[in-house]
């Protein structure tokens, strides 16, 4: 048999019994259809995988959150392993207060009541029949960066430093539209948002935010919300701390004073020097973090390296990101890669010709209000060493002579 005929007969066999062959190949590899088999020595000499119901990641790619394994706690997004600005849905950070609730969408309902003309109950179909919008916004936990601020360690990665922020294309209905249906009474100045999880988490939100840009979202990056992000519906308050973006939403009550819930009094308040604490500090300050090079990366040799990272502000668009490679003595404007959307992560890049000498990399964001990311010293002077939330000071990464990169907590 000639080489050609052998090739043709093999191709015919694959065509006629593709499913069986594919299944046999996968069975030989001991893998389910959605998993990728090990890479063959030469992928041009062996058919690849058949089509499958759900794609898995390459067997060489293993991004993972860093869960703490407790019911009331966080898991961190691996910022250093991601590209662009969108956080894959299965890697969106978590912070639950009574575990991630599993909710049957057929049983889900939303009740809007209190100071309204018409108390209303919506099911999921009702909600999706309203005109919807799709917007890209970050959600950042108000406590993001606490460990790095209080107990910095050189081996901390971007995930461990700032992994409680994620950026998503959300789809949902403007909350103002639902409030319009219910007829919010003029004396209602706040609303209580409550989740249907085991914490029945509740937060008081000014009505002005609902009239501005708040959404009830059911879509996350082109598909329904992940369980961990509040399936089937969560509140999204663009630019505001994650805790207030109540997941597994079940109730909105229009009220004329804040409820003083646990998460707006004993938690999510900011102790300040002088024996005070800031309350209802919803907005996330302008911030940036270099995600590469960063621990645990090691630069293999001197020469050109991109310094890349993410920047965002809860008050609008990022106007500028600067990068310093000499610990803040000099700064250069980084390329801010559009589209620059308000209250969303943007990617920045600064091409750096490393001379092989020790360096200290910093990034500094400025938002469209003119707010500039402060140094750690300036942050500490205003907020105190013991403050508890909203850690937006400048992060540093130290590059050693051998190319090793470590987190510089004192930068």
């Amino acid at each position, binding site marked *: 048999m000639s080489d050609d005929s052998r090739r043709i007969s093999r191709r015919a066999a694959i065509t006629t019994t593709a499913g069986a062959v594919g299944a046999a190949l996968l069975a030989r590899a001991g893998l389910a259809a959605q998993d990728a088999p090990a890479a063959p020595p030469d992928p041009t000499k062996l058919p690849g995988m058949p089509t499958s119901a759900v794609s898995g990641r390459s067997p060489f790619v293993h991004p993972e959150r860093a869960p*703490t394994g407790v019911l*009331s706690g966080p898991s961190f997004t691996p910022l250093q392993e991601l590209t662009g600005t969108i956080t894959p849905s299965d890697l969106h950070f978590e912070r639950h207060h*009574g575990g991630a609730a599993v909710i049957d969408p057929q049983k889900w*309902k939303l*009740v*809007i*009541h209190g100071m309204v*003309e*018409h*108390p*209303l*109950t919506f099911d999921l179909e009702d909600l999706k029949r*309203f*005109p919807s*919008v799709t917007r890209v916004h970050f959600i950042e936990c108000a406590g993001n960066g606490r460990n790095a601020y209080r107990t910095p360690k050189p081996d901390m990665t971007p995930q461990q430093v700032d992994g409680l922020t994620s950026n998503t294309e959300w789809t949902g209905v*403007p909350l*103002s539209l639902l*409030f*319009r*249906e219910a*007829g919010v*009474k*003029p004396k*209602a100045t706040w609303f209580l948002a*409550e989740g249907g999880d*085991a914490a*029945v988490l*509740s937060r008081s939100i000014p*009505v002005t935010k609902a*009239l501005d*840009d708040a959404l009830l979202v059911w879509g996350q990056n082109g598909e329904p919300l992940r369980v961990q992000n509040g399936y089937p519906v969560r509140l999204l308050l663009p630019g505001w701390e994650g805790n207030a973006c109540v997941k597994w939403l*079940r*109730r909105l*009550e229009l009220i004329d004073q*804040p*409820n*003083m819930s646990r998460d707006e*009094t004993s938690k999510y308040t900011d*102790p300040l020097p*002088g024996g*005070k*604490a*800031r*309350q209802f*500090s*919803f907005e996330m*300050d*302008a911030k940036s973090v270099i995600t590469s090079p960063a621990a645990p990366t090691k630069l293999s040799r001197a020469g050109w390296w991109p310094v890349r990272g993410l920047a965002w502000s809860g*008050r*609008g668009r990022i106007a500028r990101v600067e990068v310093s490679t000499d610990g803040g003595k000099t700064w250069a404007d980084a390329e801010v890669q559009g589209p620059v959307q308000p209250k969303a992560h943007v990617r920045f890049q600064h091409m750096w010709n490393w001379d092989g000498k020790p360096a200290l990399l910093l990034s500094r964001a400025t938002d469209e*209000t*003119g*707010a*500039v990311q402060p140094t750690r010293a300036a942050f500490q002077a*205003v*907020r*105190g*060493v*013991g403050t*508890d939330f909203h850690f937006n000071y400048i992060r540093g990464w130290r590059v050693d002579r051998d190319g090793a990169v470590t987190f510089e907590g004192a930068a």
Partner: protein
Amino acid sequence: MSNLSGVRSPGLAGLAFLALLAGCSDGRGAAPATGDAVRSPAADPAPARPVALPASFNLGRAASAAEIKAWDIDVNPTGAALPEGRGTYDAGQKLYAEKCAACHGAKGEGMPPVYPMLIGAEPRDFSFADDFKKHKTIGNYWPYATTLYDYINRAMPLTQPGSLSPDEVYSLVAYLLAENGVIGRDVAMDAKSLPAVKMPGRDRFVVDDRSGGPGFK
């Protein structure tokens, strides 16, 4: 259930809603095609117009009094929503040992950071910004006593949320407030006495004064 056809008023949110939808488009709307001499007007289809939005979409249904009551569990500082019932220090002490101490410690010392410390008077001067190791407790930080009822009732114990009766919640509140030195052990908690409790941290909280712009706050 019937829809509230024709009875819903646009209310406060009406204007903001219209502005919001306008923000969803590219803002160009139906700009006239001036200066376009090549196209024949006769060949143009009818110009596209946005659908006029109704005053109400009449989606959803009237919420029943029963379903509102079943979920309307929040208690604010006025205490107006507190239920009937009564709780004592002694009953609370027993309940705390049974249902709370496993996570929050026999003496309310907690297992930070997951299970916070509940009992502790120091620092009296609210100097938390000076040292992150200073623990925020009910006695030194929480500004409202009603928050205790609201939170325990909805979310505690962690593995059996929503399982406590009003008497049990009042009792735990009485115990925790007394152990924090806020009230005496002889003071019972109910819908009248609880909102009257003034917490040591009450006057320490200030409104957020950040608004962006130059100058870090």
